[in-house]
Every structure is written in structure tokens, then in C-alpha cells.
């Protein structure tokens, strides 16, 4: 709610390590999922009496299933390299937001019940019993991790805090302790195919609006087809592209580029969501069920190619997990990447000369690019290492005259999370989100002052929504936030 006080840190000109403030963000708790949201996903609606046994049983199962989890828990030597790498720690000063401390919440339980020294020596080896208090701590601080994996870049062992946080959330869901934001959204995907809960007729009505709008503004008849059997391409996009600013401007960019390329394409009202929050809650089963809608629809519509829109975490799901989740997708045309990112698709068209841009259409903007965490650190794009960095940048440079890159320490694989990723894009923790945005806001503000940057584009729906709401707390207008295909929308010569 608006009335709640949000404290935005003052931007000082550099990213500095804050003083430790015990429990500084302990009051930032996500709403719990209601019984109906839990049961819809196959989780217990309420916490059972024997929750502790069930939680430990689940932990045992995960340790067996994911060798990586066990390795991460065993490996940490507390060197401290990660300590000042988390945006939530930098923003709040709460020591439990140091990645090592966040991992430790899990590790101390693992030690107590699954290692010899913990069973014998208990507290002497930092092992701890699983209690209501520990569970509460888990719920709070594993929902203050945006699973961005910046800490793992700096860890000499590559310990992945995101994977630990996913496992913790999976264990909590298995004992009826779930988070409302993610689980409610996932229920809507089960019912209606997208995070918004947008029914097919509303989607068609929305697309009709854009067709009319493009006709009015350009005089060109550009279609946004829906549920067309036999189209060459199925485009699966985050549903925010059908709803919010600035997301919708990228959707129009996609439509124009398909039009200009002369490639038949379709959206789907059944698979109307690329996002897959199953990853955030660590549930393979939920992630698979959400992804399967896309597989089923690609088959039903008899498409040859799958192209995906601007959505960061879903690019990880699509690029890294689809093959094992719903693959092999061998009914699609092997000449093209499966799936193909819209940026890669668009850049190919630019390079082949099939589309042309009037760069001056973007002359009012000095543009910078925000690397979204999952794209930057969990995927690749195209056929060369680093393609996930170079392809979006090449595309931006192709359609605007003034581009300024972010400084190295907040860029590419070292990028900071926007502050709202990993299933934390929810209002009740707005104070945390605002504080977690501090590092990136700092870098952006510097570029605004030193290079007159006035537009930061990105390829993630969460980043767009989060920054739009949060940057105004730092005195940065929400119009500073945009999508890569928004620039294409402006500049493409139809």
C-alpha cells in the first residue's frame, strides 16, 4: 500500500559495503499462500503436525536427487568472498542477507541431521535443530534471495545460493508453508495459461487494440495473430507483454519485426505465458507442468519454430531446462535454435538485411542496457560464448545512435539483480525491494549524470515491472525503463 513508509537509500556515487545491522530486514516477510493456492499445486494446504519429520524427509530426498546441493553444503570454507556481493545485503546491512549466512540457515540443519559431526557434536559444529524458529527464519530469508546467482560468480567454489534457496522453498512447500505471490500465479497458469489470469477473449481484445493502434500510427496493416494452426512460428512471451507498461511496447516491436520479415507467426491463448515460476519455488513437477503447456500447444498448432519473448528467468527455463523437461523438441525445424530468443531472431534479420532501422527515431534517447541475472549468469544465446551479452547489445546498437554500456563491476556476469527477481516481485516486501535496487540504481544514476542516459532497456518482464515501480523512489522517472524491442518498435522501417 502507498501509505507504508519506504526508505530509499541515498545514492552517494559509489557502491559501498554497509555497516552490519542485525535483523535489519527481518520484518520483510512475504504473504503466505492460502490453502487453496497450495493444494492447487499439489502441496499440503496447511502445515501438518509432523511437519519436522516431513521436512527432513524431503531434505533427504533432495540431497539424494541433487548431488550439487550436497556438494554446495559440504564445500563452503567461509572465506567471505560472497559476503558483500548480494544486493539485499548491500541495501539492508542485514547480515543474514550475506549469501554465506543465507546458505548457513540450510547448512546448519543439514549438518545436524545428515552429517556425523553434526549428529555427534551438534552446536559445536554449527549444527542446529529444526525448530519453529528456524522455519520462520527460513521463510523470511529464503524469500529475501532473488536467486540471481551473483554471489556464485565470486565464490571460489562456485557455490550456488540460488539452488539452496530453491531447495529450501521446495521443502517449505512440501510442509504447507508456501509463498502467496508465486503459488497464486502458478495456479492461474494451471487454470488459464498465464500469470495474469487473462482469458482468451481478453487477450484477443488486447491484440485487436494493437492492430488498430499500429494501423493508426503507421498506416501499415500489421497483424498480431492468435491460435493460428500451421503458422511457422509460435511466439511465447511473458504475459506482462499483454498488460503493462513498458512491456507492451516490446510486444508491438515483435509484431512489427515478424511482419517485416514476412514470417508467419502466432501467439497462443493456451500457452500464453513464457514465465515459469516453478523454477523459483524449486519444484521440478510444477515447472514441468507449466512448460508442458507450451509443448502441447506447439504440437497442436503444428508450428516449426519456437521463439520466445523478453523474459529473463524463463529464458533459463527454456534454454537450459526445456530439453530435459519437455524435450526432445525434435518435431521442430532443426535448422533453428530450439528455443530461439527473440533478440537472436531479430539480430539475424538485421544482419541479413531483411529489416532496416531508422536509428534517428530513437535520437531522443541515450540508452544503456541492464543485464538480467538469469540471462547473464544461467544461459547463453546464439552460437558463441557471451552471446547473451553481445546479441542484445548488437541489436540495440543497430537501432539507436547513442548507447552507453554500464560500468564493468555491475555489468554482464557481474550484473546486479533489479531487486525483484526470484519470485519477490510483490508489494509487501517493497522496502526490501527498494533497498535491493540500490546498487543498480547507483550505477544508472551515475550514467544519467555523466552521459545523460535517459533510457535503460532490458529483456526481462520482472526487471521492467520492478524498476518501473522502484526507481521513482530514487528520483528516477519510471519512463527510464524500457524493453529492447521497444527500440525496434520505434525504429523499424515498415
Amino acid at each position: 500500500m502507498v501509505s507504508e513508509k519506504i526508505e530509499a537509500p541515498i545514492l552517494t556515487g559509489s557502491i559501498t559495503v554497509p555497516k552490519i545491522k542485525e535483523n535489519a530486514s527481518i520484518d520483510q516477510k512475504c504473504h503466505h499462500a492460502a490453502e487453496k493456492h497450495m493444494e492447487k499445486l499439489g502441496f499440503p494446504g496447511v502445515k501438518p503436525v509432523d511437519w519436522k519429520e516431513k521436512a527432513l524427509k524431503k531434505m533427504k530426498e533432495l540431497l539424494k536427487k541433487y548431488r550439487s546441493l550436497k556438494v554446495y553444503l559440504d564445500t563452503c570454507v567461509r572465506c567471505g568472498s560472497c559476503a558483500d556481493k548480494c544486493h539485499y545485503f548491500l541495501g539492508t546491512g542485514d547480515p543474514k542477507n550475506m549469501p554465506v549466512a543465507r546458505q548457513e540457515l540450510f547448512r546448519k540443519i543439514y549438518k545436524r541431521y545428515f552429517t556425523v559431526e553434526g549428529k555427534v557434536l551438534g552446536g559445536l559444529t554449527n549444527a542446529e535443530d529444526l525448530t519453529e524458529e528456524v522455519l520462520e527464519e527460513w521463510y523470511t530469508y529464503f524469500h529475501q534471495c532473488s536467486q540471481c546467482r551473483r554471489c556464485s560468480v565470486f565464490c571460489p567454489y562456485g557455490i550456488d545460493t540460488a539452488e539452496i534457496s530453491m531447495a529450501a522453498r521446495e521443502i517449505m512447500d512440501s510442509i504447507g508453508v508456501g509463498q502467496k505471490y508465486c503459488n497464486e500465479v502458478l495456479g492461474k497458469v494451471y487454470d488459464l495459461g498465464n500469470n495474469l489470469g487473462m482469458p482468451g477473449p481478453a487477450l484477443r481484445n488486447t491484440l485487436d487494440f494493437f492492430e488498430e493502434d499500429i494501423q493508426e500510427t503507421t498506416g501499415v496493416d500489421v497483424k498480431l495473430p492468435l491460435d493460428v494452426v500451421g503458422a511457422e512460428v509460435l511466439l511465447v512471451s511473458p504475459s506482462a507483454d499483454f498488460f503493462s507498461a513498458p512491456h507492451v511496447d516490446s510486444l508491438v516491436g515483435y509484431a512489427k519485426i515478424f511482419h517485416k520479415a514476412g514470417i508467419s507467426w502466432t501467439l497462443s491463448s493456451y500457452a500464453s505465458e513464457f514465465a515459469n515460476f516453478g523454477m523459483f519455488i524449486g519444484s521440478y513437477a510444477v515447472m514441468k507442468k507449466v512448460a508442458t503447456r507450451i509443448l502441447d500447444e506447439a504440437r497442436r498448432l503444428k508450428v516449426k519454430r519456437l521463439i520466445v519473448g523478453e523474459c529473463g528467468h524463463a529464458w533459463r527455463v527454456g534454454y537450459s531446462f526445456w530439453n530435459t523437461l519437455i524435450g526432445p523438441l525434435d518435431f521442430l525445424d532443426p535448422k533453428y535454435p530450439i528455443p530461439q530468443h527473440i533478440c537472436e531472431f531479430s539480430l539475424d534479420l538485421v544482419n541479413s538485411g531483411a529489416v532496416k532501422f531508422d536509428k534517428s527515431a530513437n535520437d531522443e534517447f541515450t540508452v544503456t542496457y541492464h543485464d538480467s541475472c538469469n540471462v547473464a549468469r544461467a544461459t547463453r544465446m546464439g552460437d558463441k560464448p557471451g552471446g547473451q551479452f553481445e546479441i542484445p547489445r548488437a541489436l540495440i546498437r543497430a537501432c539507436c545512435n547513442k548507447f552507453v554500456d554500464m560500468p564493468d563491476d555491475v555489468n554482464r556476469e557481474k550484473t546486479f539483480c533489479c531487486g525483484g527477481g526470484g519470485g519477490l516481485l510483490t508489494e509487501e516486501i517493497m522496502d526490501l525491494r527498494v533497498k535491493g535496487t540500490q546498487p543498480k540504481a547507483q550505477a544508472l544514476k551515475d550514467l544519467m549524470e555523466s552521459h545523460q542516459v535517459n533510457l535503460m532497456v532490458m529483456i526481462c518482464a520482472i526487471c521492467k515491472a520492478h524498476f518501473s515501480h522502484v526507481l521513482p523512489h530514487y528520483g528516477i522517472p519510471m519512463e527510464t525503463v524500457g524493453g529492447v524491442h521497444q527500440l525496434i518498435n520505434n525504429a523499424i522501417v515498415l
Partner: protein
Amino acid sequence: MGDVLEVGEKKVDVDEDGFIQKWDDWDEDVANALAKTEDVNELTKEHWVVVNYLREYYTQYKIAPMIRLVLKETGKRLGQDKAVSNKYIYDLFPSGPAKGACKVAGLPKPTGCV
């Protein structure tokens, strides 16, 4: 889960974010009470243009209209030949179209990456 919003004699169930739970609980008094929780002291004619449109659209499509529809339709209903700006909506409803305006109009809270 949730809370109760008191509107005169009436008690209305709201969720954790203050959105009303039942579509039929909504009336003008409830809208005014909801507005106060959104830092809107008084619902003016301009607010009602937005609120009425959201309710009409929701009745037909079971979801709030997407942002550009809100901007265009609001402009049209104000007798202008172009859409209002995003800022215009934020000036009316400080937490924006999806949260503030939908709450006052008695719609469920839009979910997802919004």
C-alpha cells in the same frame, strides 16, 4: 486470510493487500473507503471515469484492461482525441493503474510481472 474494511455499518472482507474479496461487496461507499487506503482523499469525476471503465471491462472480460486500453479509453471518455498519459493515471492513483485503480474499482489484484 486477510482483513476487514469497515464502511459505515458495513464490513467488507479484504485480502492481505486490501483488495475486496467479493465483486458484489463493491459500491460507491466502498470505493471511497478503498480510495483512502490508496492515499486518494476524494474520488473526483476524473477518478470515476477510470473506475467505471475498469468495472465495465472486468464485467465483460474477467480481467482488468491492459494499460494502453486504460489510457486510450480514459482519454476518449474525457472527450479528448488522444490517450491520457501514464503519468495522468499515476497522478490520480499514486500506486498506479494495476494496484491503485484496480483496488478502488473492486477488481482483484492483477498478478504476475506487473
